[in-house]
């Protein structure tokens, strides 16, 4: 499986200068790739483009030669840094999780999620607990490629290990692709097989 971004350029509608210029990026499911770079240089925007959040960019994004669908479930899923922003504050956690798919009990315990949290609202759980939900929600069986944008930056080291350990198990088991975006070199060196430096691929 191959996620391929070709000649991606992007600027915000009213901006004068390009944020991303002529980016070519090839990712596959054989190795875990890390994307490293300073914050505020467009890493997150690139992640959003690769997972179908934008349509107004130049260039193409293809998964196995196919464009990403706009109206159906997107096989490339993005995990954000702040889980509380990707959850409707009026929803109970059960609804939040099941918006994507029905998770079996095995996986719940794999991710350290307690059934008793299901009846809580997002603001009643801490960032670490929310991120477990957010990650598991994106691991819908239809997901082929997972992009983690600073997924564990706001978490403590122990929760970081727990979540990444659980994710990597599933990624290997289902032969999914995984892109880890982080500014933490130690982390990238520990779990990634390959590293891409953002400044090297961005033609600005």
């Amino acid at each position, binding site marked *: 499986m191959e996620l391929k971004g070709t000649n991606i350029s992007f600027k915000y509608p009213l901006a004068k200068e390009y944020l991303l210029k002529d980016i070519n990026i090839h990712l596959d499911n054989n190795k875990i790739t890390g994307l490293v770079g300073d914050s505020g240089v467009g890493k997150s925007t690139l992640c959003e483009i690769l997972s179908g959040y934008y349509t107004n960019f130049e260039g193409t994004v293809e998964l196995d030669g196919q464009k990403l669908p706009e109206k159906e479930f997107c096989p490339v899923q993005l995990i954000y840094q702040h889980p509380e922003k990707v959850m409707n504050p009026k929803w109970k956690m059960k609804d939040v999780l099941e918006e994507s798919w029905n998770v079996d009990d095995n996986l719940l315990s794999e991710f350290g999620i*307690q059934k008793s949290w299901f009846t809580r609202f997002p603001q009643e759980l801490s960032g670490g607990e929310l991120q477990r939900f957010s990650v598991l929600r994106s691991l819908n069986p239809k997901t082929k490629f997972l992009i983690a944008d600073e997924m564990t930056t706001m978490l403590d080291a122990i929760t970081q290990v727990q979540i990444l350990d659980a994710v990597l198990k599933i990624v290997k088991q289902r032969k999914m692709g995984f892109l880890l975006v982080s500014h933490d070199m130690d982390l990238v060196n520990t779990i990634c097989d390959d590293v891409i430096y953002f400044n090297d691929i961005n033609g600005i």
Partner: protein
Amino acid sequence: MDKLLDVENVSISFIQYTQGLNQRDLKVITDLTLDISEGEILAVLGSSGSGKSLLAHAIFGILPENANLNGKISYKGKELSQEDKEEIRGKDIVLVPQSVNFLDPLMKISDQAIGHTDSDEERKAKKAKQREIFEHYNLGPEVDEMYPFQLSGGMARRVLVSTALLSNPKLVVADEPTPGLDEKTVQETLNHFKHMKEDGIGVLLITHDIHAALEVADRIGIFYSGYVIEIALKEDFTGDGENLLHPYTKALYKALPANGFNLTKGHQPLHGEIPNGCPYYDRCEMRFDRCKDERPELLDLGNKKVRCFKYEEGA
């Protein structure tokens, strides 16, 4: 080195509606004890959403209406009442906020930094002082005329830091000063705290970022489920973490990618679910029977503190 701030057994709870008309008292901070001396940087390390920022709110007396504060917060040996806090905040004790969003977006930087003045002379004096400090932090005269949105990340941080220093504070409280900054700006920000320390200012650094804490702090208070479970020295975070005392701190240290990326199961008990005994009981590998129902106090071991029965006799 004189003690500046003493926080003893502080607990903070919120009155919340559960269902219908019933209210409950939700404890977010159960027992927080720490102290800061002149020229010392103390980091409070806790995961995001754990409620550690409430400590800053408690020190400045800006907790919301439905919050209940118990325990003692003293400044230079004198217990602070709400009035005292209102009196000394912005003068002896200042806050370095998380981002420029805390500034008034429609006011020029220099005007905000100077704040309210009663006379022209006072204004001139303050302006001169502001210029001097801004200059010291490499902020040219053009910055005075800018609005907050025009500042870059590093500049914004310097503005926040230098504005905080305008009132010649003795104690600086920094609430999560590093997230969302690039490596260089983080480094720069941390250097500011080091400079403050050299000038004899005490710094309370509230953060979830263990790297930042280890980089600048002299001592690190570990915050777990509403408790300070250990106050360790920076030097203890070396080797295999054998000098760290609390099992959670050890696990945290070993979970760092550079130190083994070790997996520890379990999660911090949520607010309102904290057991009677030790908050770490469920996950602890060296627990005793008594830990289940008996809550350990924070033991004073000279320059370190730990909340664990294991160190009771050995102390």
